[in-house]
């Protein structure tokens, strides 16, 4: 067992647990986006950043940082809230997120985060990149305007389905998720059409064809359910 401080309170944790897991066990909510139970943590969206006081106030991603003996973790304060809001704003301006027009409106983790973090407008200037959709798959579509590059589709596809269809292509601001060696998705030889990528996607970037505005509900928890049912060696 490990003892650490969580928002000033002493808590006990198992070795190997992450800060996020321990926080959840103790009813402390830390916002997340790229994290999804059942997938390996990535720590790429930075929304779960927490402060470790006795590491000189260093900010670490709670989903990808294992607890250590004597760690003094703060999950919410003015500095963290400010940084989370900035990270969220950057996610909103990076691409074209237009909630009113989106299949996932009302069921979107990005939209939910704006509510949770009290973001009633975005202070950064929007970038308005010109991005395409790929509607070549028979059942599903991808709209890159709504993608936050969390990589949950990429991990669901490789770690759970084992198809390795989705990956990242490009660098920096040009980066996009892409099937096989760049698509179109409908021509993919590896895609099994299982739809796990769609269920794992936190926004309306991946969607079921024929679904109207605000009508796309998803079950991201299916990823955990599938992995939990697997026999363990």
């Amino acid at each position, binding site marked *: 067992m490990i003892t650490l401080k969580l928002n000033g309170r002493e808590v006990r944790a198992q070795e190997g647990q992450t800060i996020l897991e321990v926080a959840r066990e103790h009813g402390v909510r830390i916002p997340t986006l790229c994290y999804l139970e059942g997938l390996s943590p990535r720590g790429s969206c930075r929304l779960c950043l927490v402060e470790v006081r006795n590491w000189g106030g260093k900010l670490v991603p709670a989903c990808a940082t294992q607890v250590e003996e004597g760690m003094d973790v703060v999950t919410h304060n003015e500095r963290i809230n400010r940084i989370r809001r900035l990270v969220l704003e950057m996610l909103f301006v990076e691409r074209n997120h237009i909630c009113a027009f989106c299949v996932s409106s009302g069921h979107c983790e990005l*939209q939910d985060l704006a509510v949770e973090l009290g973001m*009633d407008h975005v202070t950064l200037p929007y970038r308005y990149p010109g991005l395409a959709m790929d509607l070549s798959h028979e059942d599903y579509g991808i709209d890159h305007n709504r993608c936050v590059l969390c990589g949950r589709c990429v991990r669901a596809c490789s770690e759970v389905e084992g198809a390795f269809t989705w990956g990242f292509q490009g660098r920096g601001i040009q980066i996009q998720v892409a099937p096989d060696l760049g698509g179109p998705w409908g021509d993919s030889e590896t895609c099994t059409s299982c739809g796990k990528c769609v269920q794992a996607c936190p926004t309306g970037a991946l969607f079921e064809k024929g679904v109207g505005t605000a009508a796309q509900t998803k079950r991201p928890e299916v990823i955990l359910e599938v992995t939990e049912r697997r026999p363990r060696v």
Partner: protein
Amino acid sequence: MSKVRVATMWFSGCSGCHMSFLDLDERLLELKEALEIVYSPLVDIKEIPEGIDVALIEGSVNTTEQLELLREMRRKCKILVAFGDCATTGNIPSMRNPIPRDEVLREVYGDGNPPGMEEGEVPALLPQALPLHAYVRVDYYIPGCPPDSDRIWKFLSTLLKEGKPRLEGEEIRFG
């Protein structure tokens, strides 16, 4: 007690926010006691009067005329409110922003000299449709497409009673 002087404006939006305002239904009677609408697409007044307390502005800023009116309103009002998603985020009108302005106009109106290309009888289209705060200081935001009438009621009633509007939780959801 003198009534609070309220203005509303309609830029590039669908008027859904104004419709939602009218959806206040019987609560409009209560509002009528506390405020007076001195300028609005709902009333027939051509010039923006001086001394406005609260201006609710629907829509994104899309044309040179809208930008001028926005700046005039900022000068003449105490509290300027982005009313709905278009005014707050750009929303649907901003979907043209990744496409160059001239290309948009030619796609819609064909070749030749499409209206909006230059300043004329029709005001020129700005390079992009932007939220109000891209140009002027905005005091408060009422997100929503449209913000439902309960949200508008909460905003106005807390503003009138407490001097400061109080929208929280689900009341700020976009879309």
